[in-house]
């Protein structure tokens, strides 16, 4: 069986090659080709009415393996990624054990070799993510990490963060910061404001995030080393990042589909599927984040896919774990920005493919001839209900269950291998 295809009549959107037109895309031997020789048999994929784009990359997911395989494992998580249109995911190191050494990195990559998408491990900044001393970035990089982060556990010690930036910079690894000052919102379980007041829940002020975003910007400017701010949730963070970019500070930032589409109102009724960290914020914050995506301040959309079982979610709100799954809802929720005319398809591809590939320094982001055939075909019009029974991830913790969605990935291809297909 050969991996030779002709994807016919789709609207090909390939910003790095300045292409946005109906075009027949050819895949030969797992790579994008400009043409095929007559002896190569091409299987036809009819892509009429769809968008064909470089494979989507989610640079912020939790695959839970090793250690919490009852929530998700690399196989199930990569399958959910493929179903959501992703050809690559970067998995955060907060597994058990933490991915803070080459042995764990190699284990993840070995498991991923059986998976449905490319898996890019992110190494820990500090040993066991305890925020005390640097993990062995160099050896982990040799083993295959693409970035470092103590995601979930903000690096409190500013000297450690500075050293992490410097050391990672020397190895050409991006530092991804979970920017929250942990003492201010201590014990909080949702955004602080009138909703938390009325529900009797301890709040996490927006200042918790701004304080740390500012510190991280200051460190990036001081060291001159790039930093990537994870899951931006507040208006003020967006404003700080906009200001930093104007100053020329090497900072990049991501937000998630949930901060673009939900607010703290979702928590009402003590809905633990709306509990996450940073928490869902106000409508004002949501609008500011949408604007920051529209004007390019935030250049990446990542899901922070965080699977949890009912053991962590069907409990008292204060005790519930943070996070929601997101791989399978990212495309339709991000398409809402296109429908609302905040972004066009060109920027859609930048947010979900070009920019994450560039920041992580991994393959992808374009459909140039010779590139591995990692691509995503999206039907932007299809309407459906996001139903529990259709979820591929092992976990079900999504506030979007029951929602009417529009648009989804109908075919995903990695290296010329079809990993998800709703076309036939």
């Amino acid at each position, binding site marked *: 069986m050969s991996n030779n295809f002709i994807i016919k009549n789709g609207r090909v959107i390939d910003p790095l090659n300045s292409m946005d037109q109906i075009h027949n895309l050819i895949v030969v031997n797992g790579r994008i080709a400009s043409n095929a020789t007559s002896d190569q048999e091409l299987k036809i994929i009819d892509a009429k009415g769809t968008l064909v784009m470089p494979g989507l990359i989610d640079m912020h997911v939790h695959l839970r393996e090793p250690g919490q395989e009852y929530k998700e494992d690399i196989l199930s998580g990569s399958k959910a990624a493929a179903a959501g249109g992703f050809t690559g995911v970067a998995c955060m190191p907060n597994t058990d054990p933490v991915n803070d050494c080459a042995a764990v990195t190699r284990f993840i990559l070995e498991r991923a070799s059986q998976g449905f998408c490319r898996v890019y491990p992110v190494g820990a900044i500090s040993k066991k993510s305890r925020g005390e001393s640097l993990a062995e970035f160099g050896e982990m990089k040799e083993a295959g990490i693409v970035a470092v982060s103590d995601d979930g556990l903000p690096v409190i010690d500013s000297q450690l963060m500075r050293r992490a930036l410097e050391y990672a910079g020397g190895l050409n690894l991006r530092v991804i910061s979970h920017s929250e000052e942990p003492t201010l919102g201590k014990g909080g379980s949702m955004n602080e404001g009138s909703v938390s007041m*009325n529900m009797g829940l301890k709040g996490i002020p927006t200042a918790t995030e701004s304080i740390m975003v500012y510190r991280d910007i200051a460190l990036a400017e001081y060291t001159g080393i790039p930093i990537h701010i994870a899951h931006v949730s507040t208006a003020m963070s967006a404003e700080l990042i906009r200001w930093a970019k104007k100053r020329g500070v090497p900072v990049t930032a991501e937000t998630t589909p949930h901060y673009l589409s939900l607010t703290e109102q979702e928590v009402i009724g003590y809905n633990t599927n709306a509990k996450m960290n940073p928490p869902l914020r106000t409508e004002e914050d949501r609008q500011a984040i949408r604007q920051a995506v529209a004007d390019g301040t935030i250049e990446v959309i990542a899901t922070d896919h965080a699977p949890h079982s009912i053991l962590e979610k069907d409990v008292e709100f204060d005790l519930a774990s943070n996070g929601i799954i997101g791989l399978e809802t990212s495309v339709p929720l991000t398409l809402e920005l296109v429908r609302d005319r905040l972004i066009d398809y060109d920027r859609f591809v930048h947010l979900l493919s070009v920019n994450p590939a560039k920041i992580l320094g991994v393959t992808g982001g374009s459909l140039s001839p010779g590139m591995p055939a990692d691509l995503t075909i999206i039907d932007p019009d299809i309407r459906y209900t996001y139903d529990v029974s259709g979820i591929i991830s092992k976990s079900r913790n999504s506030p979007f269950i029951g929602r009417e969605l529009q648009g989804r990935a109908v075919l995903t291809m990695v290296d010329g291998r079809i990993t998800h297909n709703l076309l036939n």
Partner: protein
Amino acid sequence: MKSYHFNHKHILDFSRFSSQDISFILDTAESFKEISRRPIKKVPALRGNTIINLFFEPSTRTRLSFEIAAKRMSADTFNISASTSSATKGESLIDTVRNINAMKPDVIIVRHSHSGAPHMIARHTEGSVINAGDGIHEHPSQGLLDLLTVRDHKKSLDNLKIAIIGDILHSRVAHSDIIGFTTMGSKVYIYGPATFLPRSLSSMGAIICSSMEEALTDADVVMTLRIQKERQNDPLLPSFREYSKLYGINQRRIQLAKPDAIIMHPGPINRGIELAPDVADDPRRSVILDQVTNGVAVRMALLYLVIGAS
């Protein structure tokens, strides 16, 4: 006039009540008061009903009040406290509730340190759930007995000035009171150290004051709240000494209120900190023990009404 039906199967928070609901509960409680004055304090209204006190936090007054209320209505009552339940064996709250539910109780009365726990329990039980205090959220039966006590003394709940002084942020009683008194047409003025007065309290309908004078002047009701010594790991106050000096209610400050103003406190009182002993015991003003007496009548009414609504 439209016929009224009380249709609350659960009593979880005040925000679900209309003013008509509140008046109906208070009227029902009023009619039950005389039962507690009889030589034989028992009526058969809830005979054959099983009522469980499920308390995950220590409580003397509320639990006893609910138990007396249930027994005066001839219900069978059972007490489970966190120390004797499976909570200490690591059983999840939902499993505990499912097991209790399997024994077919009619009402579960819940006190829990986590806000929203009674709401979660209500989703996993067939009977009624009454919130007896959840975290820093609400304490509806205490709010109702406060309303009943004020109505007894002021004849109506309309257009009164209610001053609540103290730790409004963490007081579930204050939250229920603010919503309750506001729903009934009175105005609630709150004051205390600014660490206890987040801006968001105004979303409940309270008026946040910037001085004791503003809060107390011409008040019809002055309520002080217990300062919780167990909250001292969060730097909210420099000292109790300073609290007492700046925010304690004493004879001098109470003069700002109306001459016939009443003094309330949800108890237990830290005498000499939030409330001077001579004010707490002032027979002309203090209605603190009336609150406790009314608690039984209000809880009789709640049990009667939720069972009727089920």
